[in-house]
């Protein structure tokens, strides 16, 4: 067990010494901060716009006013969902792409494996180290954003909101870990680290963009007819094909659950956390399956590693 921790702590330290990793980490933090700030000020602008509308109507002598827009506080953080699913995933790739092949290319892998260390311990250590880095990063994001959110919007999060936020951060952790695990697997399997990195970039492009877009192109656009206004509007709706395609993208599943958790969807905005999770249990399942498969595959692959 001690060995595992030694490897983990080495991974952790190495990550924060890597300048490129620091750049992308800074980018991630900066973006999440900008997004909270923009989100809050947009909401403020909307409230101002609403007040303007009411004032305008009053001036015109109206007596009934539109209802104040339903602004759910957590929705201010909604852009973080996109940032985690896009930048967060890349961050995990950056973190893990040379975790194994790096050791191999530098010749340290040989050194490690001649010591009293089981190969699975090596994988566990790497996972623990990577998990620690991602965990710390997400905790910083959580604290930063909750603070900023309270300052800009002047609200203190309630228990329900706080629990949603915690579950969301946990989910984000799991999502990024899935990418880390897959990257680790690729890193074990490929000889060249650049090749491994680029392979992961291709995977990332597919999971985050190509699959969702393919699914999107298969949504049916029913024409909704409004006879009073005599207009025709297109309403997107899921089809079997679009659902089927989406199954293969953890990013889409993460976004589905994330949107529910961060009150983006108004129907679920008032539910408690457990109801949301049980509602989205299928999405969670689809998201976790590839992670589990690659986790097992990584442990298997490392046993076959030829060190001579």
């Amino acid at each position: 067990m001690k060995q595992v921790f030694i490897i983990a702590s080495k991974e952790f330290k190495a990550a924060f010494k890597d300048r490129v990793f620091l750049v992308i980490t800074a980018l991630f933090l900066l973006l999440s901060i900008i997004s909270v700030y923009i989100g809050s000020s947009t909401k403020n602008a909307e409230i101002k716009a609403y007040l303007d509308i009411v004032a305008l109507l009053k001036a015109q002598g109206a007596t009934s006013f539109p209802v104040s827009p339903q602004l759910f506080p957590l929705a201010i953080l909604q852009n973080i969902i996109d940032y985690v699913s896009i930048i967060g995933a890349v961050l995990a790739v950056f973190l893990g792409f040379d975790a194994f092949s790096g050791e191999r290319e530098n010749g340290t892998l040989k050194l490690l494996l001649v010591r009293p260390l089981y190969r699975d311990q090596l994988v566990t250590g790497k996972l623990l180290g990577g998990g620690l880095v991602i965990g710390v990063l997400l905790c910083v994001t959580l604290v930063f954003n909750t603070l900023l959110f309270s300052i800009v919007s002047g609200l203190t999060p309630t228990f329900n909101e706080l629990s949603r936020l915690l579950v969301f951060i946990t989910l984000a952790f799991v999502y990024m870990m899935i990418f880390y695990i897959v990257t680790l697997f690729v890193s074990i399997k490929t000889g060249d680290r650049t090749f491994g990195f680029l392979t992961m970039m291709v995977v990332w492009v597919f999971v985050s963009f190509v699959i969702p877009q393919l699914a999107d192109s298969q949504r049916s656009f029913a024409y909704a007819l409004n006879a009073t206004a005599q207009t025709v509007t297109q309403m997107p709706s899921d089809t079997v094909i679009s659902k089927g395609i989406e199954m293969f993208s953890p990013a889409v599943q993460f976004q589905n659950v994330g949107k529910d958790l961060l009150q983006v969807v108004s129907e679920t905005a008032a539910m408690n956390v457990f109801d949301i999770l049980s509602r989205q249990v299928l999405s969670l399942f689809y998201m976790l399956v590839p992670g589990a498969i690659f986790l097992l595959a990584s442990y298997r692959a490392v046993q076959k590693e030829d060190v001579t």
Partner: protein
Amino acid sequence: MNATWIIARKEITDALKNKLFLIILGMLLILTVVSVVLGAYQVRVALDNYTNAIEFLKSLGKTELPPMPNLNPISASKGFVNYIGMLGALLAMILGNYAIVKERRSGTLKLILSRKVFRDTLLNGKLLGNLTLFAGISLLAAAITFISVGAIGNVALSAGDAARMGLFFLMSFLYMAFFLVLGITFAVMVGNGNKALLLTVIMWLVLAFVFPQIGNTMDMDNQLPGGFFASMGMTKDQQTKVLVNFKFYETLRDSIEEMSPTKHYERVSFALLNVKPGFEKNTPMEVLGLKWINVLGLTAPTIILWLIAYMGFLRREDIYQT
């Protein structure tokens, strides 16, 4: 000029031996076909829905009918622009990076430069070779699209549509050229090839995702499902009065979007492919005329980066390290 050609030819043969390049290229071409197939299927469904809607509206005596959904199967899927934009960009960055890094790793850069080859000639050769390659890819993708549209979608493209498609592939070529040059420039400026690649990818993230995303976030109407104003039950008149107060906000949002070549590529492509309504009646050249600023926004950064690569390469001494 001769030296340039020799280097260019070498680039092409090298690329065709590169496993990763071939894999991504294969994916790109397969996706092209898949998106046309799915697009064609979707068009059939959409067309049925549309015909029903139109019959209904005509029965109401309406003369102003909603615009016909795009019959062009490729433009039916907005994603098509993105597949090319994304995988193409990735491909371009990889080739750009490899072009310099492989020579440096194998020590051949030293050999080439010890001959009568100017440094800028070397860069030109590299660029020319890769651009030829991308021109080939664009042509291939275009050919595949044209053939599958005819074979699968059963839609005959009119001359205007074909010209629009051709221009779209030209824009895709320019877009890939930008990322190619980005890859080369970073590889020249940053000594460590791996680091250069990572930095190129980060730059791509910022330009292609972060900037457009920030622009999106700042669009007020995007922030509520169904649109902010619709949810307020506002009439158009009232909207207008409220919008007057947000002019500065709009300008800021717009300037952020202007910095992203991806956004420019998207704008001009969507106009060419009729994804964005309002360009149906223009001739292909008129669309380009209207969107010339976007074409400029797509090409100018490439030129600037290229000049920077020239300057960077001229005085680099660590080129001689193996």
